[in-house]
């Protein structure tokens, strides 16, 4: 097999992205204001309303993003063991275990570990696990925690749920004013929200270029390039970055450059990446001429905010995210994704760390087959805990699946 042929072309913007993220962490770790104080640091969940923090000039830190980095660097199991020794069961979410371990030992994927939080913002629109995890962080660091509580949507979202979340936006504003000691500017907030919308639109534009055949990138690329939209949306830098990335992808489409050599099969990925296996998996699919053109994970950051009424639309958008809706609503979105990207099948990562994402996949895979006639493959793994992963078995199953297409 000629290795040269199957090598994917390198995405040029990757360097800028790396720089952006490195700068972000360096800034966060070295922020010092006069008189020995520092810019306040807030740890926030990946689905949290970061726009409020950016507007209040608070540095957001994402333990989940750091968890992914630790997973990719294959150091998550070691950190998790620290938490396990304290009594946290190995069956609990591995992001949480690694983060708790990292917090206690001041270590991780960035030197010295994450900068310590002054307070915590936990939004449970992704799971209930984060509530328990952040409660532990509040104990470890002895700092206040704000729970931004977004009621789960089973069939429909009642008016009082939106109102409950909208009112919490106002409480959050008060909370931030108390923490930062300065008034919250609604103009600044509208500005940030606008930048956030712009970045989200650009990100959606990037993802949409994968509708072309061949697709200019794979979801493995998207997993890497989503870092800025998760961590820094609401800033100009991120807008600039996604303009660049979008342009590069559009150029690829114009020139017919595909991420996978001689793309034959188009697949959709479901669930959080298997961070420590990304490269191997990427190669494995590429070798088999299969391109993972879209996924349910990176689209989760494509929330809509309306500038006319930012608070209500934010309350609405943050409550409706993919992991906060019932599986029949998920199914509609999944089918839409399959059709829009003309997918031949679905690859589901059954992630033992993440129950809200994984429980229901068996039903979803059957329902997708019924609705679209497309088959799915279910890979049993964990997003960062490689101790429960079998590479040989996965390889075998992926090859068999692609053969069956």
């Amino acid at each position, binding site marked *: 097999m000629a290795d040269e042929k199957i090598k994917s072309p390198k995405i040029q913007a990757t360097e800028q992205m790396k720089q952006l993220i490195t700068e972000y962490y360096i800034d966060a770790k070295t922020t010092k204001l006069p008189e020995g104080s520092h810019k306040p640091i807030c740890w926030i969940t990946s689905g949290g309303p970061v726009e409020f923090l950016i507007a209040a000039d608070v540095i957001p830190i994402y333990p989940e993003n750091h968890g992914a980095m630790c997973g990719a660097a294959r150091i998550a199991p070691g950190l998790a063991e620290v938490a396990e020794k*304290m*009594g*946290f*069961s190995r*069956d*609990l*979410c591995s992001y*949480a275990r690694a983060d708790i371990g990292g917090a206690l030992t001041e270590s991780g994927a960035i030197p010295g570990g994450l900068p310590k939080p002054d307070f915590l913002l936990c939004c*449970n629109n992704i*799971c*209930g*696990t984060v*509530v*328990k*995890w952040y*409660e*532990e962080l*509040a*104990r470890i660091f002895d700092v*206040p*925690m704000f*729970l931004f*509580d977004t*009621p*789960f*949507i*089973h*069939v429909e979202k*009642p008016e*009082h*749920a939106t*109102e*409950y979340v909208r*009112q*919490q936006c106002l*409480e959050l504003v008060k909370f931030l004013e108390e923490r930062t000691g300065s008034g919250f500017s609604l103009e600044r907030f509208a500005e940030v929200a606008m930048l956030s919308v712009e970045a989200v639109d650009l990100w959606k534009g990037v993802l949409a270029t994968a509708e072309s055949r061949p697709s200019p990138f794979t979801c493995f690329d998207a997993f890497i390039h989503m870092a800025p939209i998760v961590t820094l949306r609401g800033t100009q830098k991120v807008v600039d970055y996604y303009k660049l990335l979008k342009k590069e992808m559009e150029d690829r489409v114009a020139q017919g450059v595909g991420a996978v050599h001689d793309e034959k099969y188009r697949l959709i990925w479901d669930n959080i990446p298997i961070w420590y296996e990304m490269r191997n998996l990427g190669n494995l699919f590429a070798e088999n001429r299969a391109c993972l053109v879209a996924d349910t994970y990176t689209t989760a950051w494509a929330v809509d905010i309306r500038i006319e009424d930012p608070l209500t639309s934010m309350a609405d958008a943050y409550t409706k995210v993919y992991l906060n809706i*019932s*599986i*029949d609503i998920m199914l509609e979105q999944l089918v839409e994704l399959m059709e829009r990207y003309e997918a031949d099948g679905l690859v589901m990562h*059954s992630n*033992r760390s993440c*129950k*809200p994402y*994984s*429980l*229901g*996949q*068996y*039903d979803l895979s059957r329902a997708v087959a019924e609705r679209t006639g497309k088959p799915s493959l279910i890979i*049993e793994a964990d997003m960062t805990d490689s101790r429960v992963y079998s590479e040989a078995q996965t390889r075998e199953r992926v090859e068999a699946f692609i053969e069956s297409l």
Partner: protein
Amino acid sequence: MASALETLMELRDDPYSRARAWKERTGGSVVGFFCCYAPEELLHAAGALPVRVTGENRTVSKAGAHLQSYCCSLARTALDMALTGDLDFLDGTVFVHTCDTMQRLSDIWRLNAGYPFHVDFALPVRFEGKLAAEYTRAELGLVRSKLAHALGQFDDDAIRESIRVYNRNRALLTELYDLRRADPGIMPCDQAVWVVASAALMDKAEHNEILEEILSDLRGASGRSDRIRLFGVGSVMDQWEFLGMLEDLGGTFADDDFCTGHRYFEGDVSEEGDPLDALTGRLMERGQCACKHTPDRERSARIVQRARACGARGAIFFQFKFCEPHGFDYPAIKKALDEAGFATLELEMEQGSVSIEQLRTRVEALLETIRG
């Protein structure tokens, strides 16, 4: 004639027999629920019989096609019971928002179990403050209208009447626990915990009558127990063989924080004013579950205080394997108990594969440590 307690103990071998008989006798609707935050009073007021489902010891046959093996056994075995037809007497189910697993189980249940109606009570997770209370009140109103739609209209007076029946039940169960705290020898803990669990499996008024009888026998009884008093921490406790073994080894739960135990009956509902306000009040104020966030009321402090109050010398954590909320709470609560001088033991189990022999050795070791 069998005593009231004997009647109740027989039910343990066939927990749903009374619900089935009730349905046959009255022609009424039987509604399943999982969590002790379920609005039982509303179901009762609608003329239905609320029946609690908490899984059971079984090897799943059909649920494996819907729920991964890393899902807790409570969800897996309960779904299996539904899919194999063992809960065919149900007319509907009410799910309450608690943990991620329950939230997905609700979806899967709604799409596969095939009961005529399904209601989700999307409780907040934040259990403090005015906003959460207002939201809960609105959500209760929505649940009420959904129940009225499914089961027929019922008015405020009907809810008030149900609140009275339920308050009576809670008062009687509280008395039982008070008596046992004073003297755990009057009733072994496997029976006491079952007496509470059975309250959610039969008509409340009937349960009240049975309780009155049991209590009239117990008042003034003396057990002169020299058993080592322990405090139980966990969610659902349905391992009767384990509790029996604990008694045999010379230990007993003098009090607990199980949601099928003390947490089930804790806290009264006001009988004055708007009944939904009153129900909201109890939801927000009672002893909290690991699934709820109550920053100003740390669970561990409460547990330590209650363990002390019942004269416990140790605590046993009874954890469901794969349970996130309780798994996350464990280290902090254990630490608090350690610091307060209690010996602790964590037992992890899955319904259907509990090995009594293995548990015995560990419980023996705990009791040895306490005896010194």
